[in-house]
């Protein structure tokens, strides 16, 4: 780490807001040296509760986050918020508008709100989100709230980053068939029926209840609406083979349903209590340790993938660049599989020489 970054890290740990802001920018921009910086942050992390808030666009995520932050502050806890909005697939630009809703805590620097563009990532978070959480954690925030991009059915990356995930389901989100579908409803540790003063809220609550009971009673373990199945969700969507312990299957967490009216602050206390209850469950059942372990496993994998990817890019350049190779395929001279095998050969040879009998990561 160079001297500037050392100073920046020192300032961040000393509680300087600008240093935190700057570190997050470095992470987002992948500025030179950001990896050393993040790696130095790790020693200071682990104390914050990380809560994820997700749900469809206009469900009231930002407004609820605002009220959540306000209530945490009333209880004397410091809060960091990361709010992610989509970026344009055409220009890469973005309008980040979540901050507008977060007016209750304005003027209070102990609520640190950071807007992020998804920068083309599709899972509801940006690549930098997890590292930005680390920065806020090291800074000393008690609670870190991540607000995802307005999510549809399948943006579930939040389970990789947050300890507790709340899914907002506004009234009138479709019939009970929607609740049978896989995806976002499976990752909830807490359901929030926001805008609960609207028509149809009771019905939405009822449909969610039925869904939870269905996953609970019918011997459908591993599917349906169980929050503690989050890791299995990740398993299903990824290729790692970390073991899933089913020891807590019996006393497992059943996601509660909270009704809120975020604009008026109704139900926010109950919501916070349920978040705290889930936290307690995670720690007491040992699920948290497992969760954290799997999270780190995934982080290591992601980093390795990035590094290997970088090596392969260099290898591609050396072989004449991807465009020329692709053109060879177009002219029928070769095919993508042969090219991939050829390019990998030197790397495989190196690995073989080192007598490392691990399989390629990618």
């Amino acid at each position: 780490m160079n001297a500037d970054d050392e100073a920046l890290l020192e300032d961040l740990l000393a509680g300087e807001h600008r240093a935190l802001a700057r570190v997050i920018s470095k992470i987002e921009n992948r500025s030179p040296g950001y990896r050393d910086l993040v790696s130095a942050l790790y020693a200071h992390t682990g104390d914050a509760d990380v809560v994820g808030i997700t749900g469809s666009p206009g469900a009231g995520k930002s407004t609820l986050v605002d009220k959540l932050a306000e209530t945490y502050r009333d209880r004397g806890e410091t809060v960091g918020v990361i709010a992610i909005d989509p970026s344009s697939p055409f220009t890469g630009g973005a309008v980040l508008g979540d901050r507008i809703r977060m007016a209750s805590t304005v003027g209070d620097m102990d609520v640190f709100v950071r807007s992020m563009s998804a920068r083309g990532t599709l899972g509801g978070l940006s690549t930098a989100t997890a590292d930005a959480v680390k920065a806020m954690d090291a800074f000393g925030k008690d609670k870190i709230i991540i607000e995802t991009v307005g999510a549809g059915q399948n943006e579930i990356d939040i389970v990789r980053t947050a300890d507790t995930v709340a899914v907002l389901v506004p009234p009138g989100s479709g019939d009970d068939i929607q609740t049978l579908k896989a995806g976002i409803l499976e990752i909830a540790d807490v359901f929030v029926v926001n805008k609960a003063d609207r028509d149809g809220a009771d019905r939405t609550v009822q449909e969610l209840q039925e869904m939870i009971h269905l996953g609970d009673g019918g011997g459908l373990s591993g599917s349906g609406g169980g929050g503690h199945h989050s890791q299995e969700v990740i398993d299903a969507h990824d290729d790692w083979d970390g073991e899933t312990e089913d020891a807590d299957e019996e006393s497992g967490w059943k996601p509660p349903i909270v009704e809120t009216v975020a604009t008026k602050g109704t139900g926010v206390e109950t919501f916070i209590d349920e978040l705290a209850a889930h936290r307690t469950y995670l720690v007491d059942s040992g699920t948290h340790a497992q969760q954290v372990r799997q999270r780190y496993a995934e982080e290591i994998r992601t980093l390795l993938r990035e590094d290997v990817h970088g090596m392969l890019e260099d290898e591609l350049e050396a072989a004449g660049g991807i465009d020329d190779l692709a053109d060879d395929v177009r002219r029928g001279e070769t095919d993508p599989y042969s090219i991939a095998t050829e390019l990998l050969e030197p790397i495989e040879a190196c690995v073989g020489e080192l007598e490392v009998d691990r399989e390629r990561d990618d």
Partner: protein
Amino acid sequence: MSSEQEQESIRCLVAKVGLDGHDRGAHVIARAFRDAGFEVIYSGLHKAPEEIVQAAVQEDVDVLGISILSGAHDTLVPKIMDGLEEYGAKDDTLVLVGGVIPDEDRDELMDEGVSAVFGPGTSIEETIEFVRENAPER
């Protein structure tokens, strides 16, 4: 390391400050900046100078565009500049003011540290070009 490709994007805060409810211009600018590939944070209406400073610092923006059509720029802009200074953010934030600013007030704003004042009739392209050329290298 080769995988550390920089992915820098110009971050802008478009801010409405004080008792001024005219935000069409701010919306147009926010949209135009988005289409130019910038990341735009919009403050919303009726913000106090301290709120603008808080947002600019936390969001670590490269550019702060203040839209004022109320005539209160003499008092509000200096407050924002002082706030930025307090957090050590004044020197590397490009501050622009847009709106109805009388010619005789421009110099004073520039002395405060504002980099440019864009009055009525300024083309969007001109503003974007200015930002691209002057956004601070960090």
